[in-house]
């Protein structure tokens, strides 16, 4: 599937809702895995918190008024995560979705450039909130490669769905790359050198969420 095949297909409210549903599904599916990762270098609540937060969003999707935009969906996710997730993930992902929502506010459908804006604003929100930098062994290490890959793809003429696909792949690779790192931010930083050799759970949940976004987008274009 080249740029010509899908370049004109934007991502609309159906995609956004599907992203959240797939996100909730994948986080439920990987709940125990994320708990285990977090138990190794953190406090063990990440899988539980992310699952709880996204499950809380699901019933609210049905109440979205007609004419809602993708930004409205992301804002709903943001406020729900902030008020239901008790760990660091609530404020961090809440801020990410809030800033991402603001970046595409009012758009009924977003193109590849919109995907880049959304991802970049989300990443910047996380950095501003958590004050982590690349290489600190946090979710930023999944977000930043995703933003960079998305921008390169969009500049090269990729469709919105293709842009999300390369972003998701880059996030997954970024999560893998956290394994040897020594944590400098978050609860894992208390472990110092002992945090090396473990995957960062926040980077992994980011990889799962962007994978869900990409899967929802490719589902939309192929349907």
């Amino acid at each position, binding site marked *: 599937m080249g740029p010509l095949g899908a370049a004109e297909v934007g991502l609309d409210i159906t995609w956004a809702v599907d992203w959240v549903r797939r996100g909730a599904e994948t986080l439920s599916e990987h709940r125990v895995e994320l708990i285990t990762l977090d138990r190794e270098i953190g406090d063990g609540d990440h899988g539980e918190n992310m699952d709880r937060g996204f499950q809380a969003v699901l019933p609210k999707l049905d109440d979205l008024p007609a004419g809602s935009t993708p930004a409205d969906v992301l804002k709903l996710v943001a406020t729900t995560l*902030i008020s239901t997730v008790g760990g*660091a993930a609530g404020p961090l992902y809440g*801020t990410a979705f809030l800033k991402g929502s603001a970046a595409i506010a009012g758009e009924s459908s977003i193109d590849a450039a919109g995907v880049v804006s959304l991802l970049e604003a989300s990443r910047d929100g996380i950095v501003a909130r958590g004050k982590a930098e690349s290489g600190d062994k946090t979710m930023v290490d999944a977000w930043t490669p995703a933003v960079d890959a998305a921008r390169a793809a969009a500049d090269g003429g990729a469709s919105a769905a293709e842009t999300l696909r390369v972003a998701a792949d880059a996030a997954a690779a970024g999560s893998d790359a956290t394994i040897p790192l020594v944590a400098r931010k978050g609860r894992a930083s208390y472990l110092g050198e002992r945090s090396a050799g473990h995957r960062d759970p926040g980077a992994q949940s980011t990889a799962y969420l962007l994978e869900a976004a990409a899967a929802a987008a490719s589902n939309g274009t192929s349907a």
Partner: protein
Amino acid sequence: MADGGRIGIVVVSHSEQLAAGVVELAHQMAPNVRIEPAGGTDDGRIGTSFELVTAAIGAADAGTGVVVLCDLGSAILTAETAMDFLDEDQRERVRIADAPLVEGAVAASVAAESGDPLETVVRAAESAGGGGAAPGAPAGGLGEGPADVGTSGRISRRITLTNSDGLHARPAAELVKLASTFSQRVTVNGIDAKSLLAIMALGLVKGDEVEIATDDAAGAGAVDAIADLASSGFGEH
């Protein structure tokens, strides 16, 4: 207004019990300050709650400002997020102190009790983390009885602590509160009498001799008042 327009304090902890305990401890020294706990998640698990923090800030704010103390990293993230959602005029009078939870909450509460403004309460919290590095005992001769006026203008009195617990939390807080009512700088064994944590760090116990002093010529009243309080036994006789 029961709180006299004092700065309010919010204690954010991952643990409901820890937040409640810190509030209890701080309230002992600052009974007239609004000190609100925001501990645990909405449903009582370990974590922090955006809703509880937001509600606590609202309850602590008498209109003059609120200082927020946090335990671990994500408590700060939650508090910062809650601040983002406040009305702009309220957000401007809320500060998150970069301070250890217990020491910071106690120091901030005592400063608030004394009627200090927002920035001073923040500083009290943030200076509480230094461990109160107690310098050595003061040099100087033995002056007994009423305040001595030395040749350098130094005024001092030496008293002996008679209460069973010495300058522990409550007496230390009373002494600091009294010292804070005077504009002059007064020291207790060389330590600023307005710094609760530093006074407590002296670890003075029953029977210890204490020098109350000032270099301010106008400070005789302050020295006498503080020395009278310290030698009175703080009502513990």
